[in-house]
């Protein structure tokens, strides 16, 4: 029982983290049809920006609560700046290309951003533990857990809800779904598609950054930790169905829980399970468990 609760909570914690990181990826793919490898870089940048801001605030001896403000500001800033630059300067000119080639281009962007981090923030790790320390811990399932991870779950729920709401209940969401359905027609209808693309990409980048920014307090933010995130979020997105938000949610939950089970029961399989599931899903349902509105025929 104890073990069960623990596994569940560990799984949920990891799942929420995965979801926040992956949802941006899936939205971008759904609308722009771009498999964005650079997403991992947004994640890293978000983490760095947040960690930098938090440690700065701490040095200035502001209240630790400022840390949370920093997190969201950092995410928004990174999403806005990097997202805009990359979409306008590079991707803009590639939409005609084969999508795998675009993915490769984003790989190039990823490599560049990775090193720019080094040049901007240096190699020393950042420790922005204040927000996590601030919230303390609660006993649960016989062991104590940090409250911060629960706020992470809450954040995941908020993100999930607002994405769903934003896409289904708002005018903007409707516009986007029109664009997803058929780019040419929506252009003919006078929708400013390129603007929609830009905004969606910025949002996606922002979410990636938010993922990084929010976990920053729990880690030592050090160079090169965007790499593993990429394939993990790929797995999540593919499992759920590329371009589907509920899919990303389910995918994150599956991966999170399975990994938790593995860590507790068979640590050797920790990484294996994630990609085994990814492969299996692709084999059985290539379009993913939750195929997006318009199933893509290849």
């Amino acid at each position, binding site marked *: 029982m104890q073990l069960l609760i623990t596994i569940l909570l560990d799984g949920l914690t990891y799942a929420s983290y995965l979801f926040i990181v992956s949802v941006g990826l899936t939205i971008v793919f759904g609308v722009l049809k771009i498999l964005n490898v650079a997403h991992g870089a947004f994640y890293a940048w978000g983490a760095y920006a947040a960690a930098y801001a938090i440690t700065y605030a701490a040095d200035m001896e502001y209240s630790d609560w400022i840390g949370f403000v920093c997190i969201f500001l950092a995410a928004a800033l990174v999403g806005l700046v990097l997202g805009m630059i990359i979409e306008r300067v590079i991707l803009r000119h590639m939409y005609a290309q084969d999508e795998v080639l675009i993915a490769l281009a984003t790989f190039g962007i990823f490599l560049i951003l990775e090193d720019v981090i080094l040049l901007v923030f240096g190699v020393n790790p950042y420790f922005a533990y204040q927000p996590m320390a601030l919230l303390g*811990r609660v006993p649960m399932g016989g062991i104590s857990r940090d409250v911060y991870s629960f706020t992470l779950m809450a954040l995941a729920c908020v993100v999930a809800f607002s994405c769903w709401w934003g896409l289904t209940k708002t005018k903007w969401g409707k516009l986007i779904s029109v664009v997803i359905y058929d780019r040419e027609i929506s252009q003919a209808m006078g929708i400013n598609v390129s603007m929609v693309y830009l905004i969606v990409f910025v949002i996606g980048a922002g979410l990636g950054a938010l993922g990084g920014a929010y976990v920053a307090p729990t880690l030592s933010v050090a160079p090169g930790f965007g790499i593993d995130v990429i394939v993990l979020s790929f797995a999540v997105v593919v499992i759920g169905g590329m371009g589907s938000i509920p899919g990303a949610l389910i995918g994150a939950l599956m991966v999170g829980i399975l990994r938790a089970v593995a860590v507790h029961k068979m640590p050797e399989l920790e990484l294996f399970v994630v990609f085994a599931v990814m492969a299996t899903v692709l084999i059985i349902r290539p379009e993913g468990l939750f195929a997006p509105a318009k199933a893509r025929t290849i």
Partner: protein
Amino acid sequence: MRKQFAYKALRSAAIASAVAAAAMTGATAQAKDTIKVGVVSFLTGPAAGPFGVPGKNGAELIIDAINKGELPAPYNTKGFAGATMDPVYTDEAGGNSKQVAEYRNLVEKQNVDALIGYISSGSCMAMAPVAEELQKLTIMSVCGTPRLFEEKLRSVVFRTQGNAVGDSIAAARYMTEKFPGLKTYTGINQNYAWGQDSWKFYSLAMEKLDPASKASSNPQFPKIFSGQYSAEISTLSLDKAEVVHSSFWDGDIEAFVLQALVRGFFEDKKFVSVVGASAVDSLGKKFPKGVVMGTRGPYGLLTRFDRSRPLNNWFVDAYKTRYGVYPTGPSYQYAKAVLYYKLGMDKAAAMAGGFPTQDQVIAALKGMKFESFGGSVKMALGGGHQAIHEVGYGITTWDKEKKAPSATDVKFYSAECINPPEGTLAADWLAQGMPGAKC
């Protein structure tokens, strides 16, 4: 050149006699004004901040000092066998295969005279065969897996850092002495040579030192640089074991401590960290008190304010003034390796009576015993290629006056107390109950 040597010889009595002897031994190498040496450490990636850069700084500091001849006596002779060292700082990140390629580049493209460095046991295990293939003197400074010299003897590879056996046995001895009540233990170690060996030898030693002790059935071996340990921490917390052993280093130790700290992990468990001192410095006041902390040698946290000897004091002050922080383990370990190389070069030069060939340097390095910053180092194992030295543990605390982290109950174990005699495999020695251990 020769004049310069004679001049130096006069200044250093120890060497003077040798020079006389060297008169007859001919064959010396073409004298050089500068030697090129590859200094390899993590410059990027998660290990750069806590290990690579401090290590590089340590090397940088002492190389400059030696080139200028500014070290306190008796190390104050200028240069390496009179030659100025021109270091090539190289990144250790990127996986073993990439490192092997880089090693080949350093030797065959940049024509370095020797290599100093390597932090990850993975790198060391991968570099050793290449070093042997290319026959290039390589002094490993930090990595700790005993496999390096236990698997086979090496001709051109040296290591100035004691291996995981000593660190683990010392940890086990410390625990059984200071906390005889704690019988059950588990561990979290990175899933590669260093982590695997550390855990292996720690549990072997515990079996022998306290037969009543019991290892957990479910120790954790996450992939190095994983960064997220929430699930692992839960597993360890659920585990009934009272002690948690860890050989985490690089960014992982900080990440782990941060994540565990909030969850009161260190109040429920007695945490033994073989090499986490870098985290103590980086986290400062934040670092939990009461953690059993090792430094893999007489330096860093455990000896910062004692061990006052000219070389050590000079190093701490010079480092603090140049980099604004105290030197950490890696800084010392890199500096130690450079110092060792200098001593070898000078000694060989003295014996050869001229600029030494690599073989002469290797002969000089073999089995050398020298005074390092905190204590003495004996190249006792692996046919005189593997160092042994004392290893200590202490309990972390926060020093209010100095506003710096420090350690209480510091205890050091002599090299012979924690290392097998030459020729015996560590595992066998432990199995036999560590015969002849001098403590």
